[in-house]
């Protein structure tokens, strides 16, 4: 007899994980020789509860449905997928029914092979990890390995830009001695200290403009030409802060301090080297533009910045952060221009960003959501016209810069959302004390608010008010929880379809509406409950975890689910951009890899469970 080669079976198995990921071809080949094959007609049950299962089933062709003991649809599976492991991990005891929904051909892998591979090979057992949260963790870890934490100035600490200890000199030296020191050390800036305390800085430019150009004697004290009490930055600040400061103050060197001591200097050159994807250039460009049409022109670079960040393996937090900063910068610059155009504001005001921009979770192509909080000095008769003109112009300009007008009219141009602080407070009091279902959905966006321009204190006072109200009217939380349950994530995928719990199958689904928004909603409720002042969902989750509202690890599960779903959305939008399409949130499962589908299914599961939990957690809250 010839050696028996079961090529058809082997090739089929090796096409799909976990077999495709395993490094032991001989072992799998050995296993294939013990496979049994079974044909099952559409409509017949393959495994039924309360029996003993002895095989891991591989779907060679056809499809099956998994049903709970209550006959509830749990998932559908197709070619290349495996089932039966749940019972194998419990001594064969079957608890879920598996039913053919098409004519099927199965390869049956004996239980002893499953157990052997499960015990001996991590790649194999990881695949069958029953706890979806653990599986999600593995997925995120794999993603993080690729993700470049240093990719963005937005998120890397300023100290990561430091290349050497600072070069300094005491302040009792002459200009020439200082210049000599700079030449020796080949630096373009020199810190001046007095008894080791930082008192000033001298740069190449100072030597040029303050010494040579002015014909100053080189023997003069260095104190004459140094910039006194230079702007510094703490070593823990983000590098982006450095850029903002340098641009705002028009300086090219910035001493970095730690516990008050200078530990180095960063220059614009350091920034340029670091910055490869241009988000900082874009921000500095925005500040340089003098009118709306110029801003509109550079707003087209945003797509490029976005794709560059993605290609540099930034994670969703970095991308959200960068895009939100860019968005904020457009607003800041436009308001600066507006104040030149329409004159300074007659009374203090605060321009607030709402929703994703407030949470610093903006993506490419997001509608504008914004509002004005005006000082209580506001007098409609006197000031109404000014702020109306300002708001209309601003919202229209933002629209031209790639931030489309909000379809729900949640914009500063809407009189309702251009009100003095006292009015805002009564809005919130009403929403919180008399929650109405239809108003809730809309109002949830207002609970994420961030001052972008103007009087910070107005936004802060409003936030204080919101938190106080929430603490006093806990019933509001139960309404918010119900609200957070309105948008349900899909059950999973089947073939090219999205599968719902009801068994309904659709072609595409909105990843934002059904994956990201539900998480944000859940987290917002917990954040309000624990009094967190954070806006960013990931940061809120840290506060929630610290407050101990959720069971150990659950906050992290939500963070992982959010990161995973967000990255799928980001990749989806990048692909659309590459294809010349307008990026949106509608994902077609056909374009997802099997790994993405699996990870998404796990993430959706986490969201569903947390939606359930939140209903129960705040159900009993009373005013």
């Amino acid at each position, binding site marked *: 007899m*010839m050696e028996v080669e*079961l090529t058809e079976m082997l090739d089929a198995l090796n096409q799909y994980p976990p077999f495709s990921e395993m490094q032991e071809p001989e072992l799998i080949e050995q296993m*294939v020789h013990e496979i049994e*094959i079974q044909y099952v007609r559409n409509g017949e049950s393959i495994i039924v509860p309360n029996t003993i299962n002895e095989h891991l089933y591989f779907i060679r*062709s056809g499809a099956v449905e998994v049903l709970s003991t209550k006959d509830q649809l749990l998932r559908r599976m197709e070619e290349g997928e495996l089932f039966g492991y749940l019972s194998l991990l419990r001594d064969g005891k079957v608890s879920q029914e598996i039913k053919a929904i098409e004519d099927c051909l199965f390869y049956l892998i004996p239980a002893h092979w499953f157990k052997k591979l499960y015990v001996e090979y991590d790649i194999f057992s990881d695949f069958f990890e029953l706890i979806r949260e653990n599986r999600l963790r593995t997925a995120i870890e794999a993603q993080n390995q690729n993700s470049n934490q240093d990719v963005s100035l937005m998120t890397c600490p300023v100290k990561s830009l430091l290349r050497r200890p600072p070069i300094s000199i005491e302040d009792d030296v002459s200009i020439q001695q200082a210049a000599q020191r700079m030449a020796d050390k080949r630096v373009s800036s020199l810190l001046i200290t007095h008894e080791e305390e930082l008192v000033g800085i001298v740069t190449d430019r100072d030597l040029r403009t303050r010494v040579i150009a002015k014909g100053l004697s080189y023997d003069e004290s260095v104190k004459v030409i140094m910039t006194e009490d230079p702007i510094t930055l703490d070593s823990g600040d983000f590098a982006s802060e450095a850029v903002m400061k340098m641009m705002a103050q028009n300086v090219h060197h910035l001493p970095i301090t730690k516990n008050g001591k200078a530990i180095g200097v960063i220059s614009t050159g350091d920034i340029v080297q670091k910055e490869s994807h241009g988000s900082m250039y874009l921000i500095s460009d925005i500040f340089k533009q003098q009118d709306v049409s110029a801003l509109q022109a550079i707003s087209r670079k945003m797509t490029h910045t976005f794709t560059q960040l993605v290609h540099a393996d930034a994670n969703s937090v970095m991308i959200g952060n960068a895009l939100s900063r860019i968005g904020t910068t457009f607003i800041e610059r436009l308001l600066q221009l507006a104040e030149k155009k329409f004159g300074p504001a007659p009374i203090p005001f605060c321009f607030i960003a709402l929703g994703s921009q407030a949470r610093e979770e903006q993506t490419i192509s997001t509608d504008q959501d914004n509002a004005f909080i005006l000082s209580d000095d506001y007098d409609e008769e006197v000031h109404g016209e000014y702020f109306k003109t300002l708001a209309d112009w601003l919202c229209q300009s933002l629209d031209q810069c790639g931030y489309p007008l909000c379809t729900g009219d949640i914009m500063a141009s809407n009189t309702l959302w251009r009100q003095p602080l006292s009015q805002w407070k009564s809005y919130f009091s009403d929403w919180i004390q008399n929650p109405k279902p239809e108003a809730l959905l809309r109002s949830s966006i207002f609970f994420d608010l961030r001052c972008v321009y103007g009087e910070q204190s107005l936004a802060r006072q409003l936030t204080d008010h919101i938190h106080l109200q929430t603490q006093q009217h806990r019933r509001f939380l139960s309404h918010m929880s119900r609200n957070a349950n309105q948008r349900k994530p899909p059950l999973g995928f089947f073939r090219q379809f999205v599968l719902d719990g009801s068994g309904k199958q659709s072609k595409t689904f909105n990843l934002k509406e059904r994956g990201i928004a539900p998480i944000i909603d859940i987290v917002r409720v917990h954040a309000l409950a624990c009094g967190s002042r954070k806006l960013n969902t990931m940061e809120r989750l840290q506060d929630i975890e610290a407050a101990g509202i959720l069971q150990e690890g659950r906050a992290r599960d939500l963070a992982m689910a959010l990161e995973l779903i967000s990255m799928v959305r980001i990749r989806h939008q990048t692909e659309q951009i590459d294809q010349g399409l307008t990026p949106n949130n509608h994902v077609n499962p056909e374009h997802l890899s099997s790994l993405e589908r699996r990870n998404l299914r796990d993430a959706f599961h986490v969201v569903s469970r947390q939606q359930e939990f939140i209903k129960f957690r705040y159900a009993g809250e009373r005013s």
Partner: protein
Amino acid sequence: MLAKLYDNFRQDSNQAFDWHDYYLTQAQTLPEGPLKRFYQAGVPALDTKLADSPMLALDLETTGLRSQKDTIVSVGSVTMSTKRVKCASAQYWVVNPGARLSAESITIHELTHSDVEQAPPLSRYFESILEAMAGKVVVVHCAAIERQFLYQAAKKLYGQDLFFPILDTLAIEQKVLKQRSLLKRIFTANTSVRLDACRQRYGLPRYKAHHALTDAFSSAELLQAQIAHHLDADKPLADYWS
């Protein structure tokens, strides 16, 4: 010509041919040897339910289609029941046909001169093949080919007749196609009874054709599908074999 021989052989012995009786006679009258042992192993009783029948799916690749001139180049087999096909039982033999392979046949089964040159002659393996078949009902797609070539081979090696009952997936499919409603017959284009075409009608995956072992699996799975859809596994085997 051989098909005719087999028909005569069946007709001689009436409609309800008693395979059991035939096996007993052969077992008693044949001289000692592999063939006698094959018949001694018997055949499932006539009233054995299809569901309880031990079966062997079999396929041959040959140098051509004329059993008297052409010979076997490879044999594949796998045991099965109505519910399971067991990979562990799969067997595969490549034999030296003792003649040049025609270019035409090479393109079909993809076995080359050098593949078969090294292989032993069929005589070396025939006993093993008979052992695999012993006591089981043979399942093939298109009974005539296997029947003729195995008959011819036994005749050449032992000078004796080799007849055995077969579950023919092709014959079953023809019957199924004939029994379809008029509407279905008019509106379904696919009425081919080639192995691959039959498999597609049952949603079975596409396998590479004309490899003796793969084709044996293909027929095995096809029979399972035919049973699931059209046959009654509780009926006696004798209702379906030929």
